[in-house]
């Protein structure tokens, strides 16, 4: 852009680049503290089970064993990350109580002098578990008689009395009735890992002044501090979180999983405690992106206008919902896509299964909507005999259009962006598409009355 700015808009060399590429940047787990202990977790070997007993007596005889922590040791044994912004209910335990709901759920923390001793003691904790039926598919989980994952009796997160996040604009059924075509599709996506270079971890250090310094790679220092303060029932001023340099997050390090238990271990032992996920824990235990199943039903006119869109989405939250309920709301806000559709109905369900829990990930409820919608757009184009560019220009939203969530569009530039992409790849757009802008309808005499 041509305006008189000095440094904004210039590609100055990134201030931490040399450190990153030469390996000199200090990350959380690079801190070395004298007398540091190592924490490793005993995890559920079953997808769903009742806990009948935990026996740590053999583990305690391993040379180097220092301390075992179970649910009874955690002052407020509930992990409700979005409790800070008022999201309920409390559903997850820091260390398992009564039941385990996914394979890999944290049950007993072992603190030892070395990593080897900690692993050996973990292997010697005896678990008495009664296996329960498990459910892994979002639609199976909603059927009557399905195994119940939650403690409130059904497998959906409740949104102010509804089992799904709803969006309603216009009259979808009436528009389907007068549409020339109905286009339906079902889209599935797999759960995936954030796969950061640096695995999730922290080091909690008791200080001489009675405070605890926690070196962490969280994406959100205060989110982690405040949640740790609640779980450990200690005032925030006893906690000092240090981080700010993270080796890849992608949403996975917005969870607050390692800091509370490492800090508790430091309190109980009065020693520094290191708790850093192995790669296998990062892959198999840390939150993933939810799997999604998205049903789309579109009513389309013969000339390619989408006049109605019905979306029914299921996010596989796994055993605990963490940040996923919020992702469903973001999904619902974006599930009709960057298009002007006058009749929209969206039901977005956050469904519990006995799978590794899910949470935030890059694109938070939108990435998978974009996949479904943009494949669907090509199907519509083919059906009505338009090319993939034209169908998108024809339906693109403009500034001032009413979105399904009833906020008027502003900063709409889809049309200009598509024109730039066409120019980049040498695709010659028809003159009427080249002449379009995202300006409010009517101002340029474009079609204003939508079917």
């Amino acid at each position, binding site marked *: *852009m041509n305006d008189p700015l*000095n440094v*904004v*808009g*210039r*590609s*100055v060399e990134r*201030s*931490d680049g040399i450190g990153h590429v030469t390996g000199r940047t200090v990350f959380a787990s690079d801190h070395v503290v004298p007398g540091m202990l190592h924490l490793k977790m005993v995890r559920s070997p079953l997808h769903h089970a009742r806990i009948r007993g935990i026996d740590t007596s053999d583990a305690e005889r391993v040379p180097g064993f220092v301390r075992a922590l179970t649910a009874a040791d955690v002052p407020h044994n509930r992990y409700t990350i979005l409790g800070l912004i008022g999201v309920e209910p409390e559903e997850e335990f820091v260390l398992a109580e009564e039941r385990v709901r996914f*394979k890999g759920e944290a049950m007993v923390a072992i603190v030892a002098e070395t990593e080897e001793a900690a692993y050996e003691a973990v292997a010697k904790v005896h678990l008495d578990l009664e296996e329960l039926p498990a459910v892994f598919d979002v639609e199976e989980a909603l059927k009557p008689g399905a195994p119940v994952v939650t403690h409130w009796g059904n497998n959906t997160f409740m949104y*102010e009395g*509804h089992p799904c996040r*709803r969006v309603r604009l216009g009259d979808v059924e009436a528009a389907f009735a007068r549409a020339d075509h109905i286009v339906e599709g079902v889209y*599935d996506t*797999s759960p*995936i*890992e954030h*796969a950061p270079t640096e695995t999730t971890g922290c080091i909690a250090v008791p200080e001489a002044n009675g405070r605890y310094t926690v070196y962490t790679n969280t*994406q*959100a*220092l205060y*989110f982690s501090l405040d949640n740790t303060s609640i779980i450990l029932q200690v005032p925030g001023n006893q*906690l*000092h*979180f240090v*981080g*700010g*340099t*993270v080796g890849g997050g992608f949403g996975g390090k917005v969870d607050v999983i390692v800091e509370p238990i490492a800090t508790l271990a430091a309190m109980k032992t009065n020693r520094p405690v290191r708790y850093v996920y192995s*790669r296998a824990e990062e892959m198999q235990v840390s939150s993933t992106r939810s799997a999604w199943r998205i049903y789309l039903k579109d009513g389309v006119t013969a000339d390619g206008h989408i006049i109605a869109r019905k979306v029914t989405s299921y996010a596989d939250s796994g055993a605990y919902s963490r940040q996923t309920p919020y992702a469903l*709301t*973001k999904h619902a*806000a974006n599930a009709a*896509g*960057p298009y002007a559709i006058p009749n929209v109905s969206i039901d977005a369900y956050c469904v519990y299964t*006995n799978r*590794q829990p899910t949470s935030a990930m*890059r*694109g*938070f409820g939108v*990435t998978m909507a*974009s996949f479904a919608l*943009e*494949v669907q*757009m*090509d*199907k519509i184009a083919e059906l009505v005999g338009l090319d*993939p560019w034209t169908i998108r220009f024809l339906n693109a939203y403009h500034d001032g259009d009413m979105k399904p*969530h*009833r*906020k008027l569009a*502003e*900063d709409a*530039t889809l049309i200009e*962006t598509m024109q*730039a*992409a066409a120019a*980049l*790849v040498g*695709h010659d757009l028809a003159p009427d598409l080249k002449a379009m802008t995202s300006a409010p309808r009517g101002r340029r005499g474009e079609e204003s009355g939508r079917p």
Partner: protein
Amino acid sequence: MTKLRGTGIAAVNYPTGMNLGGDPSQALIHATTSGSFVVSLSATDLGQGLKTVIGQIAAETLGVEFTEIVVDTADTDTGPHDMGTFASRATHRVGNAVIAAALEARQALLEVASEELEAAVDELVFDGHCNLMVKGVPARSVKVADIAALAQFKYGRTIAGRGSFMKPKSTVDPETGAMDPDSTEAHACTVADVEVDTETGEVRVLSIRSAYEVGRQVNPALVQGQIAGGAWMGMSHALYETTAPYYPAPDHSPKDFSEYLMPGPLELPEIECVVLEMPSSNGPYGVKGIGEMTANSPIPAIVNAIYHATGVRIDSLPVTPEKILRGLDAKRATPS
């Protein structure tokens, strides 16, 4: 064996910021004796370059060189509250907070300079290179560093500023879904070219070419880095990644990078982009968030390109060679 080529497109929007707001970011700035400025944050840099762009925004607003800014993103004892680095919010939210803090610090600096130069505050201008002067009188110029030192040792003043930015928290109407889910919207359109091997089902992505509209670019090289990284990640989602290869069955979950597949350097396609800048009304210098969205449009663009190449529609991710071969078999079995 046949290798079939196809092209696919996808167009997307992406909202900036936590969708319902209520996500504050705060910043503090103070001058050192040598005229450098320390920006204290509790926001984190995930490797995307937040420290760099925040340094640029602070330098721009203060009117000093980028090299005079130290950004500390480290510590809950020294950095004021920040909601966190996620939701494509950091440059937008923290940038706005830093502008507010920088304006307050700048005012403090100008007041000291005003006394020292015996000129009214509104007569003073920055040259963007660490000098202050009386408007139209270059001879009456003074270094920012000298004013910073004088503030400490002659006038006993602080040169400091506080800044906060928060979009107020809103709610969702549970019946209609009426809500305010964004601060601004960025846009992308991706064109993917692929080659599908009909014998093995393997997909080679030949190119991912995109246009992005991201408001103001604070640092174009870092924007390009996001676009290239996101193109790779989107390609990886489209074709490779899964923690449950036989979803919904939970078995065979990978435990390391030899089992969790991602494209390596040899699989990397040609990645090209063009960036449009149409400033937002509420971002720092017109910024919109580009952090998350760059992985989005490549996914459907690649899946659409596979259909264009083969005539096989695959509606489930990842699109593995097995799914393509089964699709080709089904297509052969169905007389068209």
